[in-house]
């Protein structure tokens, strides 16, 4: 079908006793920034390795741009990878590393150099071309790996936690840079991360992985606002589950509900509870955590259960915050923010 960069059907892969990928179906569109989010060991890297061709699936089918590639070797697929452990060639300079793919494709030396330098500039490594990988810091190596995969402008770029070794500031810069490159060249990015914030801010769509399966696929807003399972709710953002008896009393029907902490307002216990469309519950503040820009309240509800609420520090400061511990409060949220999860 047109418009699909990658299509995975019923993909399975096990190593000895462990099933790393357990029946994955995914469709990734052309030019999409697609993230795979999941805890350590959930099979993200294995899916990437299957797409790149380093592993062959036990079962299932892989299509790239409408062509079946399940049994093709890595060098026959128009896909480049940024490896989780960089995999830079230690016997080559940074520039030679970046130009390696171009050399394989017999691109003339002069053009190779120009393009390699440009790619190094894109990842903010001008002037490092003559160094060896061993003479770089972890973050710099990671950016060389990025440049090496980007320089050939493949149809699909697979990135395995490509920003994991960078400090926060550089990481944010590179996030912006990556997005810009991706939009500019229109490459399909498959971006593996276990940083949910990164996935939420950068992606067009996200697949959340859980134990070798895809728990949910959707836009960042869908994943965050409408988690499909308790696992997704707890892995993306802070989960705030309202279950059993407490759920029944507060919402009027049994089931498991998830409410994002920032949707809950913390009010004085005596405050009016009758805003239309809102649900409310009283409780005691068990813990207060000062976060700088916000404060997190852990509230033990009178009806059982515990909810976390996040409040912007509009007027409060750290000194006031501590005084809340042990006080009685009323929590309030709009009913539409209590998302019912399938049990």
């Amino acid at each position, binding site marked *: 079908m047109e418009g699909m960069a990658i299509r995975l059907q019923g993909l399975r892969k096990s190593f000895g006793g462990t099933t790393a990928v357990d029946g994955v179906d995914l469709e990734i569109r052309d030019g999409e920034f697609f993230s795979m989010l999941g805890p350590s060991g959930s099979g993200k890297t294995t899916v990437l390795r299957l797409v790149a061709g380093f592993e062959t699936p036990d079962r299932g089918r892989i299509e790239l741009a409408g062509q079946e590639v399940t049994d093709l070797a890595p060098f026959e697929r128009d896909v480049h990878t940024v490896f989780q452990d960089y995999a830079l060639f230690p*016997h080559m300079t940074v520039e030679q590393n970046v130009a390696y793919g171009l050399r394989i494709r017999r691109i003339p030396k002069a053009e190779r150099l120009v393009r390699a330098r440009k790619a190094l500039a894109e990842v903010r490594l001008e002037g490092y071309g003559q160094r060896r990988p061993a003479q770089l810091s972890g973050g710099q190596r990671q950016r060389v790996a990025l440049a090496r995969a980007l320089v050939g402008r493949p149809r699909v770029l697979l990135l395995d936690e490509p920003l994991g070794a960078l400090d926060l500031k550089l990481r944010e810069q590179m996030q912006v840079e990556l997005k810009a490159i991706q939009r500019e060249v229109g490459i399909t990015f498959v971006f593996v991360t276990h940083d949910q914030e990164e996935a939420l801010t950068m992606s067009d769509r996200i697949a959340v992985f859980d134990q070798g399966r895809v728990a949910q696929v959707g836009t960042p807003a869908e994943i965050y606002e409408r988690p499909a399972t308790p696992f997704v709710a707890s892995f993306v953002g802070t989960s705030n589950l309202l279950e059993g008896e407490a759920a029944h009393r507060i919402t009027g029907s049994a089931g498991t509900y998830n409410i994002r902490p920032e949707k809950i307002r913390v009010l004085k216990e005596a405050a009016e509870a009758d805003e239309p469309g809102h649900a409310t519950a009283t409780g005691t503040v068990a813990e207060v955590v000062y976060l700088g820009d916000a404060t997190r309240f852990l509230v033990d509800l009178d009806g059982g259960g515990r909810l976390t609420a996040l409040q912007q520090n509009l007027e409060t400061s750290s000194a006031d915050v501590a005084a809340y511990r042990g006080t009685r409060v009323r929590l309030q949220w709009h009913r539409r923010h209590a998302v019912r999860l399938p049990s």
Partner: protein
Amino acid sequence: MTTDLPTAAGRGTVRRLAGTLHRRPRLRLALLLTAPLLWLAVLYLGSLAVLFVSAFWTTDSFTSQVVKVWSTDNFHALFTTPVFRQVVLRSVGVALAVTALCALIAFPVAFYTARVARPRWRPLLVVGILTPLWASYLVKVYAWRLILSEGGLADWMLAPFGLSGPGYGLPATVLTLTYLWLPYMILPIHTALEQLPAGLLDASADLGARPGRTFRSVVLPMVLPSVAAGSVFTFSLSLGDYITVQIVGGKTQLIGNLVYSNIELNLPMAAALGTVPVAVIVLYLLAIRRTGALNSL
């Protein structure tokens, strides 16, 4: 109680000493290395110096007594006598041929033991490669003498093809030396190949390289220093050998034989001949130092 005091004090001294040593790595290194370095300097470099100096002496042609008179006659003879020149060239040629053969044979063997064979079997295979080193040198060389003898195993195996074995001579010497020193080449290459990260091969394929290309551009350059390291052994061991050539070499003469035959009659000449392999090996080491091989020794 009274015995405690000296012990505590003693322990204190030891700790202080340990602390001092910890803070001064150079002092620690000096203490550690003084004895072995002295040994090396006096015995090894000393004997080399004696060798070199005595090469400038001469002998009384009647009594064969060493006369300690300075002259460069020996070196002059070395460079002008055709026989000497031939022998030196032949010896270097043999050493190079043995090294090249060892590298050619060792690479596929090491590739098999390090990357193809099942991980469980690898240590066993390495032991297998090492076992010949435990057998006596002479036994192995005489075994080759038997193999290469007329009507021996080599002849017998080649007979169906209408060929015969090489017999005793230069090729037999190269063959036997290759067999003898092969493990010294296989081991470093095996280690290098085993330590080659699989991710690099993936990365190369990912960027479009076919296996042959990956081999040339990634595997070979990364393993080359180890080949050079192995060649230091095969080259210098071959250059210094004079027993194998006596047993399977027929009439072939190498530097070692000349040194050996001159020791009784003309010690200074033997010394002058003896400096040749030392000089060649130093040159060889300087040449391959550029490959980084000496770092991986």
